[in-house]
């Protein structure tokens, strides 16, 4: 099934080292659309990524840093990149440690601009 988000998610998952790309509702933490490699748990990633993003956004607002454009969480076995797309949506990318974060960031921000 093709959705308005399919092309964006497809372009993100094609980047080297990317395991999953998702559009998530920030308020509910539910998956709106996703493109996952085998073995990825979309619902779990969506819930946690939305929670992290919401907390970061509220913290940034409290500290008067303005809106949060890009968030990156590095773990031992991978990394999560999150960008706010407006209208209660966030774009989430799960990638390997070896993935090129610069490239992911550029594509992610480009994708958010396309949504606004």
């Amino acid at each position, binding site marked *: 099934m093709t959705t308005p988000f399919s092309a964006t998610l497809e372009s993100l998952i094609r980047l080297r080292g990317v395991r999953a790309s998702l559009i998530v509702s920030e*308020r509910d*933490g539910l998956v709106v659309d996703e493109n996952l490699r085998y073995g990825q748990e979309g*619902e779990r990633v969506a819930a*946690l990524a939305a929670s992290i993003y919401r907390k970061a956004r509220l913290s940034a607002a409290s500290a008067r840093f303005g809106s949060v454009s890009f968030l990156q969480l590095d773990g031992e076995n991978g990394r999560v990149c999150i960008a706010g797309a407006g209208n209660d949506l966030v774009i989430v990318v799960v990638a390997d440690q070896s993935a090129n974060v610069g490239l992911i960031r550029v594509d992610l921000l480009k994708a958010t601009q396309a949504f606004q």
Partner: protein
Amino acid sequence: MIIATVEPWVEPPLKQYVDDARARMALLLHPSGQVVAQAGFSRAVDVMTACALAAAVHATSRELGRQLEGDTTRRGKSFDGLHHGGEQVQLHLAPVETRGGSYICLTVFDAESSLGLVRMYFADLCAALAAAAPRFAVKRTPALAADFEHDLNRNLAGLFGRS
């Protein structure tokens, strides 16, 4: 956190669930509406009424699901969970299956959590309760008028720590 239960094996998984999901409150009850456990941070709740209403809502929505599904053999099993989104407080109502029988869990959460988080940790709660449930369930007899008051008092005493 307030935690009260009439079945001690329920306490650790339920407490963990409320902590992880950052829920305001979780109630575990029998499908008949009998309270099994309460965990959370909210005192201003009439637990008995909430459980009775939750049991009624669960039975109604499950039956509605069964009717809509059009397959009477499945007993509405594809309509397991119910979410009610309020402006400040939201509800999640879903069944928990264990060897000892079926329960219903009512979770109340606010903007500190999200439906995604609650659903995610609810799956963990189901697994934890299924693992912790006693192998042989206590056989439940119908609530007869003669025993009802005694059972009610015992459960209330357990819940409010007077046992």
